[in-house]
């Protein structure tokens, strides 16, 4: 089964929040509501070696999604064609069980029912990338089939290790 996924490069993210704003815009989320994507700042160390990192997170469209498992009404399902986890708000009763189950804080509530990232399926149907990915100025966010993403990450890691070995060897 195909499984779409987001990729995220923590070394590239500057915390500009463009992904959050584009998500709010794309999904017509009302003011005051949290976006389907959020950015967390992580401060480590102290002067002079302090470091700030940012982590952009949304629904991970889990392979074995806990929100789907605990939903009492069947409002949450996983699409066979691309593995995207979607919510049917007409079936949601607003029990909030999904919020308790999700380790990523993905489910959001508006007018008592749950909504969340659906991988911008209307954009995807038109051949476009999800809004958050398309606006990311540093290409920290990406998306694709999870197998291809994993392969790309492995290749990048191999290149990094090889370069480091070659650099070490040339000394």
């Amino acid at each position, binding site marked *: 089964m195909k499984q779409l996924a987001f990729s995220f490069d923590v070394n590239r993210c500057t915390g500009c929040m463009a992904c959050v704003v584009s998500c709010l815009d794309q999904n017509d989320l009302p003011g005051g509501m949290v976006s389907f994507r959020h950015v967390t700042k992580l*401060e480590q160390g102290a002067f002079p070696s302090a470091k700030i990192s940012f982590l952009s997170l949304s629904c991970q469209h889990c392979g074995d999604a806990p929100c789907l498992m*605990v939903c*009492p*009404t*069947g409002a949450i399902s996983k699409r066979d064609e691309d593995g995207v986890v979607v919510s049917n708000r007409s079936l949601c009763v*607003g029990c909030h*069980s999904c*919020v308790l189950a999700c380790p*990523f804080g993905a489910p959001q509530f508006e007018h008592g029912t749950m909504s969340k990232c659906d991988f911008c399926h209307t954009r995807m149907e038109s051949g476009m990338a999800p809004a958050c990915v398309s606006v990311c100025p540093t290409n920290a966010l990406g998306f694709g089939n999870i197998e291809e993403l994993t392969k790309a990450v492995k290749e990048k890691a191999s290149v990094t290790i090889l370069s480091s070995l070659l650099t070490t060897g040339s000394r």
Partner: protein
Amino acid sequence: MKQSGLLIMGNGGAAIHAVSAARSAGYEGEIHQVSDMEGPAFNPMLSPYYLKGIIPWERCFPFGADFYRKHEVNCHFGSAVERLDPINKETLLNNGRKIHYKKCLIATGAKAMAPPVPGLQESGRAFTLRTARSTKRLEEVISTAKRAVVLGASLVGVKVTEILRKRGVEVILVDVAEQILPRSAHPESATLLQGYFEKQGVDIRLGCSLNSIESDTRGVRCLFPEGIVEEGDFVAVCTGIRPCVEFLNGEKIEMDQAILVDEKMRTSVENLYAAGDVCQGINLMTGKREWLGLWGNACYQGRTAGLHMAGVNAVHQGTMPQHVSPFFHWTFAQLGDVHRQGKDVHIVSGGHPEKGGYHLFVFDGEVLVGVNLINRFQEIGSFKTAILRRLDCRRLMDGGFCSTYDEIVERIGRSR
């Protein structure tokens, strides 16, 4: 003697997920399912939403009537199990039929329990909320009621109270405990919730035991200590549940409050499994087997049992106490142990439910052990992770305890 494959006793979330998992793992043998109730699986979690008018009746059966045909299940519904004989691997139904099995799952759930109050057991005006049948009975009595007494300010008791208030019924909510939601709310959170419920018109009596009940066809008279008498059209009994295990008849299955299981949902008897509200699995916070009635946990347990019965080496590590529920216009959540006592226990609380949300964190030494939240949930997943991983929150203590929600969120994030 012929063995008939898998036998699933019960027809709730655990049973359904067991059947589904066994078939998805490629099990092609016979599956027999027995339940004393007729019809498709009912989700008791949804009955309050039906009674509040949020969903129609048919939505209380989320797996549908077609589930059993699709999964090729031999249904024996409307037949209670009279006796389970795990030595000979057979079960006797109350219609006289015997079913033999290779492996059996007990997923019979739990039933509402009434306290031993004189006049309560035999009262025709005492109602519970658990099954499809009890939901319909409660609906019928609510439709003509003007005043009711709710026994038990537990999660179910509070939900029944909300239903009654939404339907314009006067409610007296009674509990022997000194606070509402005695298991899931810290006393401070409970006080906030109590004030809110009282604003919704609920008359709450705490630390109050019921001496006896007198009933006739028109209603009930509840007799409390010091000569206090309260009259109502009916009594809603929300004082707890007990596992449905009557058919065991003293079989040597290891039990505590409910049937004890391991991480593969195996009982102490070979080829006999248990899942859902009828069993005690691991509480990840204590490492002990505890009775935690949770819909999601029941579904995971059922799935694990189904896979294991089908030959897949699946495990379910356990869960932790947790709950979330909307009450009127507030939503309340609990994680872990909010009643922890000890010299190193420290409480951090603040905020207001109607001004951005209320929070209460319970730390034991450097470890977060319990959380109550009202109307604020974005980070609840990270709190759960912090509790389960026993994260060393030492940085939270730098220069004294954090006092704001945002500080705690940020520092728990760092600790991860």
